[in-house]
C-alpha cells in the first residue's frame, strides 16, 4: 500500500475523508451517503463530487438499505453518521441487506466510546463493537492515528464485503510512521515488553503507550499491542504476542460486554492458554454522568493514572516471578 505523509495535527475525520476523497475522484463508483452528519473535509467532497455525495437526512435505516441497493447496482458505498445511529438504529438493515448479501458497503461511525461526553447514552458509542462483532461477514477497523486512519479508508475501499470503521474525532499523536506499517495483519506490537501484554484499540492505544512508559519506570515491562482490526481478529498473531508474558490486560473505551476484552478472553479460552487476563473497560451500565470525554474516562478509571494503578494492583498477585526477580519495590507507592 502506498501511504502518503500525514501530519499528526490532522483531525482523524479529515485523515479518513481526505483519503476517501482521493479514492472517489479516481473511482466514480464510490458513493458517500450521510445521515445528516458533517465533517470539515466533507465540504470538499460535497462540492467537487456532488454526484457521489448524498445526504439521506435523518433516516439511518433507509441509508443502509439504499446503500445495499446501490451496491447491488455496482457501486462501492460508504455511509456515515454517529456510531449509535450508524450501527444500532439500523442494525437489522446492516445484518440482512449488507452482511447476508456480502455487499461492499462501509459503515463509518463517528464518536467512539465517550466522545460525546455529557450528551449521554443516546450518543455514546460503547456497545457497537459488541453488536457489530456478532455479524459473520463484518470487518471492523478501529484506527488510532492519522496514518492508519487514512489507510483504513483504502483498506475499506479495497475490501469486497462489509466493513465497519470506528472513526475518532480530534487529533492524536502519530503511532505509525508513514509507509512503515503493514496494515494487513490486523494488529501491531508498538512497544516491546516481557511482563504484561497490554492490548488496546482506538484512542486507548495512546493511553496504553503512556501507561507502559510509566510502568517501565516501576520496573514492569509492558508489551503494547494495537488491535486496529477487531474483526476478523488475527488470532494466531495475537496468541504469539500474548505468549511469553505472564499476564494480559485489555484496554478499551467500550463496555465490558462483548468488546475487545471479550474478544481476547475468547481467544485465550479457546486456545487453552493459561494466561491471566484483566479487562479495563466501561462497566456494564449506561453513563448518565455529565462532563467531557476526559472527565468520563476518569470516572471509569480509563485515564493514564488509573490504568497504571489498576495494572499495578492486579498484576503482583498473578506473577510471582516479578517478586522473585526482586522487582517488588516497583509496586510500593
Amino acid at each position, binding site marked *: 500500500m502506498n501511504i502518503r505523509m500525514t501530519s499528526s495535527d490532522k483531525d482523524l475525520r479529515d485523515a479518513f475523508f481526505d483519503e476517501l476523497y482521493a479514492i472517489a475522484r479516481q473511482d466514480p463508483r464510490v458513493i458517500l451517503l450521510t445521515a445528516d452528519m458533517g465533517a470539515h473535509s466533507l465540504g470538499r467532497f460535497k462540492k467537487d463530487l456532488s454526484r457521489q455525495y448524498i445526504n*439521506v437526512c435523518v433516516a439511518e435505516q*433507509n441509508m443502509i*438499505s*439504499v446503500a*445495499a*441497493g446501490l451496491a*447491488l*447496482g455496482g457501486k462501492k458505498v460508504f455511509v456515515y453518521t454517529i456510531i449509535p445511529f450508524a450501527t444500532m438504529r439500523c442494525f437489522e438493515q446492516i445484518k440482512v441487506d449488507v452482511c447476508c*448479501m456480502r455487499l461492499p458497503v462501509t459503515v463509518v461511525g463517528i464518536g467512539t466510546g465517550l466522545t460525546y461526553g455529557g450528551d449521554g447514552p443516546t450518543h455514546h458509542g460503547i456497545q457497537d463493537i459488541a453488536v457489530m462483532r456478532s455479524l459473520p461477514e463484518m470487518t471492523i477497523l478501529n484506527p488510532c492515528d492519522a496514518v492508519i486512519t487514512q489507510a483504513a479508508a483504502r483498506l475499506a475501499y479495497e475490501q469486497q464485503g462489509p466493513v465497519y470503521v470506528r472513526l475518532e474525532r480530534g487529533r492524536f499523536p502519530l503511532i505509525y510512521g508513514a509507509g512503515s506499517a503493514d496494515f494487513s495483519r490486523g494488529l501491531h506490537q508498538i512497544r516491546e515488553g516481557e511482563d504484561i501484554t497490554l492490548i488496546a484499540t482506538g484512542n486507548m492505544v495512546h493511553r496504553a503507550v503512556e501507561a507502559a512508559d510509566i510502568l517501565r519506570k516501576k520496573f514492569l515491562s509492558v508489551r503494547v499491542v494495537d488491535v486496529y482490526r477487531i474483526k476478523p481478529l488475527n488470532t494466531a498473531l495475537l496468541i504469539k504476542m500474548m505468549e511469553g508474558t505472564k499476564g494480559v490486560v485489555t484496554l478499551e473505551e467500550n463496555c465490558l460486554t462483548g468488546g475487545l476484552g471479550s474478544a481476547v478472553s475468547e481467544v485465550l479460552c479457546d486456545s487453552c492458554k493459561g494466561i491471566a487476563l484483566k479487562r479495563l473497560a466501561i462497566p456494564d451500565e449506561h453513563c448518565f454522568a455529565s462532563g467531557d470525554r476526559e472527565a468520563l474516562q476518569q470516572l471509569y478509571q480509563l485515564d493514564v493514572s488509573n490504568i497504571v494503578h489498576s495494572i499495578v494492583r492486579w498484576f503482583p498477585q498473578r506473577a510471582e516471578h516479578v517478586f522473585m526477580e526482586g522487582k517488588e519495590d516497583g509496586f510500593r507507592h
Partner: protein
Amino acid sequence: MKDNLNFLKDKARQVRGKVLEMTAAAGKGHLGGAFSCTEILVALYYGGILRLDASRPRWEGRDRFLLSKGHACEALYVILADLGFFPGGELENYNKPGCLLGGHPNRSIAGIEADTGSLGHGLGIGAGLALAAKMDQKDFKTVVLLSDGECCEGSVWEAAMFAAKHKLNNLIGIVDKNGLCVTDIIEDCVALDPLDKKWIACGWEVVEMDGHSFDDLLTAFERVPSDRPRMIIADTVKGKGVSFMEGNIAWHHGVPKGELLQQARKELEII
C-alpha cells in the same frame, strides 16, 4: 388480448396449485400471502412487464424485481422454476434439509435479486438500485412488492420520501393490500388508510386497482412513467382462490391437511 388474459388466469391457477402442493409437502409456508399476490406476480413475469432472461439471471440489462414481502416466496419460486431460472425439481425439496429453496428468498437462488424476509427493507434497496441505474444512465426498471402490513414499518416511509426526492420514476412499488397481518385486521391495529393519500403525500404517483384483475394490473404497469416513482395499491384477498382461506387470518401460515387439503385441490382444479 382475451387469449392472453385466459393464459394469465390459467397460469395463476397453476401457480396456486403448485404452491399448495409445495406447502403441504413441506408442512409449512405462507399460503395466504402467496395467494393474495399470485396475479401480481403472474402479470409481472408472464405479462411482458419484466425484461428478463432466465439463461442469464445476472444479465446487467435485466429489470430488477424485489419481493420485499419475502414470506410469499413460494409463489415466486414456482414462477422462476417454470421460466427456467432453476430446475423445477427443486420445488419438491422446498423447505427440506439441504434444499435450495428456503422459507425466505436469498440471492443464492437464480432470479432472486435480494435477501428478504424481514419487512421494511425492500423499498430502500429498490430505491438504491433505481438510483444506481439513474447514475449510470441504465434503462432497467426496479419493481418492489410490499405487503400492507409491511407499510407499518417506518423504514418504508423513509424510503418513500427518499425515492420521491430523487425522482426515481424507474422505481415501481406495489402494495399487496389484503388487509390482514399475521394475527389481526390491520385497520384494527393502526390507521393505515387512506393509504393512497399517504403515498401521494410522500410524492408518489399512485394507482389503486383490483389486484386480482389482469386488466387492471397490466394497465397500471404499462402506464407511461411520470417524473415520480409509482405506487400501485393492489386491493387483494388473502388466501385468494381457496374459499375457506379467503380473508381468513388462520391461513397466514396455516397448512391444510386431510379433507381441507383435498377441498383446496379441487377448488384450484388440480385434481
